[in-house]
């Protein structure tokens, strides 16, 4: 009796295996087109950014103009610059006296923080001579008011050494972050200085005082 499902006995396959080359995927016209489109988009983007330099305008600080004695409202604080003073000798109120080949300029500032504690860290003087004078959180030209708490006015005196010709028309700029003022409020204070101020201070060696920062208002002379 035969078994219909029976299979014939397997015979060994003695033929050697034929190597099959792996299929290589060739880039299609569609792939190449997509790549070209990406490159074209990048090129157009580069041309647009180069031809229309919008970065500087988009990232520019929001300058808030003010004059001496007039409070300026910033996003993070209310700031008031007092009457500037100057001399060729600075008294930093630490027992030493600092000389300068130019003129020391001091500006008393009152800081009223808005909403939360703020430690203002940026300051620079734009001289009337077109040059920029750095004011750092340490060193000779100095502004480090410390943290102002909301509801408690903070008093600090900024000091910067400049050549006398920088004083007439000088503007003081104050901001929050020392390293980055992009898209941020920055006070731009016209100090109202004249050539007469520059001449008088350049000839004066009476030390001008730059007292310590405090929550107490400075004593009036």
């Amino acid at each position, binding site marked *: 009796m035969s078994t219909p499902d029976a299979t014939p006995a397997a015979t060994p396959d003695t033929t050697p295996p034929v190597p099959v080359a792996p299929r290589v995927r060739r880039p299609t016209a569609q792939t190449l087109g997509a790549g070209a489109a990406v490159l074209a988009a990048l090129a157009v983007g580069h041309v647009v950014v180069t031809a229309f330099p919008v970065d500087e305008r988009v990232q520019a600080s929001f300058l808030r103009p003010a004059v001496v004695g007039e409070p300026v409202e910033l996003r993070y604080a209310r700031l008031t610059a007092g009457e500037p003073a100057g001399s060729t000798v600075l008294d930093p109120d630490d027992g030493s006296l600092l000389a300068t080949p130019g003129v020391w300029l001091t500006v008393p500032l009152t800081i009223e923080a808005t909403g939360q504690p703020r430690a203002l860290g940026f300051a620079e003087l734009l001289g009337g001579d077109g040059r920029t004078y750095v*004011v750092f959180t340490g060193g000779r030209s100095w502004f480090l008011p410390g943290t102002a708490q909301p509801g408690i006015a903070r008093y600090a005196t900024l000091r910067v050494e400049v050549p006398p010709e920088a004083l007439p028309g000088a503007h003081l700029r104050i901001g929050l972050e020392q390293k980055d003022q992009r898209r941020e409020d920055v006070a731009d204070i016209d100090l109202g200085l004249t050539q007469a101020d520059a001449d008088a201070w350049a000839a004066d060696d009476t030390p001008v005082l730059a007292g310590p920062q405090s929550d107490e208002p400075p004593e009036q002379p």
Partner: protein
Amino acid sequence: MPGPAAPPDLRARARQSGSTVARRVLDQPLRRIGIGGAVALLAVTAAFGGLQEQAQDGPEVLAVDAAVEVAPFELTVHRVVWTTDLPGQYLSEDGNRWVGVVATVRNTSDAGVLGVTLRDALTLTGVDGLVKEPGVLVPGVTSTSIALLEDGSSLSPVQPGLTYEAAFLFEQDGSVAPPTTATVLLQQHTWRKGSLDPTVTWWDPTTALRGELDVREAVSDADEEGDE
């Protein structure tokens, strides 16, 4: 002509992959691959200014009392002296001494520059026993402090339009003999954006002038008056 540089099994795999580029590259002799690589490297460096003409062959010779431009400063080196006592300056160990390079400093840019850039602009080499180690990014040893002669304060920031008389101070181990000569290096900086930080500032201190100067013991004003 020498044969292909690549091993046979790698070349066989390249043939099996069907990639014409890979097969042709691996069939090349080593010399041709080397030449091709060198040309490619040259092309890449050229794209970043590698073939631009050099402004100068090497540092110029620094002369005493001659003002030189090393952006962003104009520096005039007057003398190199050593002393064990300097009011307002504090040595890390008793018995050490200061080696001071006295110079006139002017910031010739249109904005104030922090003292860290000035520190990199003038360095010292060829002096044994300096307490500070040579830097990685700046040739020579940078000063411990830069003191104004007028009041002893640290010179920072350096404002434009002002002329400062200052001493670049280097602390030397007191167990080493005071130097008789010192090599002063003046570095100039480049105003550019950082590679990672878009902020534009002074980068790449590069030695522009180099001078071996005599070193003598500092004479105080009182001693000078006594000699007269």
